């Protein structure tokens, strides 16, 4: 299950400055574990101690906020694009 993951600037130090990477997983939870195995340290930045996504991190699958889908259980399929966007601003 190969998906493209867009990495925000503050996390690119974990990905050797790559803004986009290929990763694997059939859900967001699996994707997070795959990211951690390839880029150690990145998961602790995205998730709290319980493994839940931090409340100011936003994940989008093909531009849809995963909170409108199944949250961390949101399934992924080949060719999906996942964006990680820190802290909503605006308003």
């Amino acid at each position, binding site marked *: 299950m190969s998906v493209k993951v867009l990495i*925000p*600037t*503050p996390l690119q130090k974990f990905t050797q400055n790559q803004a986009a990477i290929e990763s694997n997983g059939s859900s967001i939870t699996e994707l997070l574990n795959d990211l951690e195995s390839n880029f150690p340290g990145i998961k602790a*930045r995205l998730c709290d101690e319980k493994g839940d996504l*931090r*409340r*100011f*991190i*936003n994940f*989008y699958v093909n*531009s849809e*906020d995963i*909170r*409108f889908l199944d949250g961390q259980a949101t399934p992924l399929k080949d060719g999906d694009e996942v964006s990680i*966007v*820190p*802290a*909503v*601003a*605006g*308003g």
Partner: protein
Amino acid sequence: MTQAVDTPRTASRQATFTGLKCKECGETYQPEAKHVCEDVCFGPLEVAYDYDAIRRQVTRETIQAGPNSIWRYRAFLPVETDTPIDVGTGMTPLLSAQRLARRLGLKQLYIKNDAVNMPTLSFKDRVVSVALTRARELGFTTVSCASTGNLANSTAAIAAHAGLECCVFIPADLEAGKILGTLIYDPTVMAVQGNYDQVNRLCSEVANTKGWGFVNINLRPYYSEGSKTLGFEVAEQLGWQLPDHIVAPLASGSLFSKIHKGFQEFIKVGLVEDKPVRFSGAQAEGCSPISQAFKEGRDFITPVKPNTIAKSIAIGNPADGVYALDIARKTNGTIEDVTDAEIIEGIKLLAETEGIFTETAGGTTIAVLKKLAEAGKINPDETTVAYITGNGLKTQEAVKGYIGEPLTIEPKLNSFERAWERANTLNRLEWQQTLV
């Protein structure tokens, strides 16, 4: 009244802010263009102040001797310059709303009227004046924003005054008045085919790639501080005391939390006496993620997809929603939402009782005020302030078809007499309907 503007730059006074601090984890950062706690938890950053320094600089008298604008509170704002961008923003009327109060069964009701804020007739002029002053200090030459309309008006206008390049992003379906009221200042306007939350996300990505100052993204810690002046002014206009209860619209939740911060800062430096102030928030039913969380007792916000005429507050994924929730709960306030029909009635009620024409966000606030008053959630004797944040001339579409039509007559006395009699008959019929 004419206000002196933009005198030549002089030496910088001692800044009263020390840097940026994460609201979630407390990590500190340099006072740069940055809004995210990048090193730890990705929480939002906020400006940190040296309150001892502010206390040394400020008294009621020094404030009263200051400019007739938000810059009389400069010691509480995150800028270094002695010559901020002053276009006469702020010090809008605090109106004793006696006729509206009687209609709602209240006794001490005030309207803070930012429908007549300068230069673009919404509270956004406050935040933009601060953001662009800071943008200039940080060396930006192009400024930008993700806007539901009022912010685009304000950013474009004040950028024009300050001689900054400007590119604004709005949802493509905004009201005509808000689009025209931006284009007139000749910025680049990107009308994005999507809702505000999609515009906002796009701007987060653009902010990462362009070296622009986005007032409500990378400059957001500075920008949002401008809303504190809505708290400061009300306290000063009430004779240096705090109200008992405030009602304000909720979009991102930033305005609401900054009014609270403004009151707290005035208490902290001894300008007003400490007292409990209840904070109640207003949302449109078609975009009410904060109200839903409040009613369900949740401490997290589930984003929604907006569907309401109140476009200026249609933010489905509100950045400061959790902070607004927290403030409403801890101050014993409430958060309520109203339908689009109630919003239109709210706009009309304020116009007919107080002579203030507000936009849909103001209609939302008045409709929620009415709902809370009817539900007994506002004590009639409480000094209550309702914040009206925008002007109705910008959202004329919202009330078209719900208000009267002019009576077209010939330029002859008898034509007038016939029309006048007919109008009075119609009025009597309306009264009869009301009585039935």
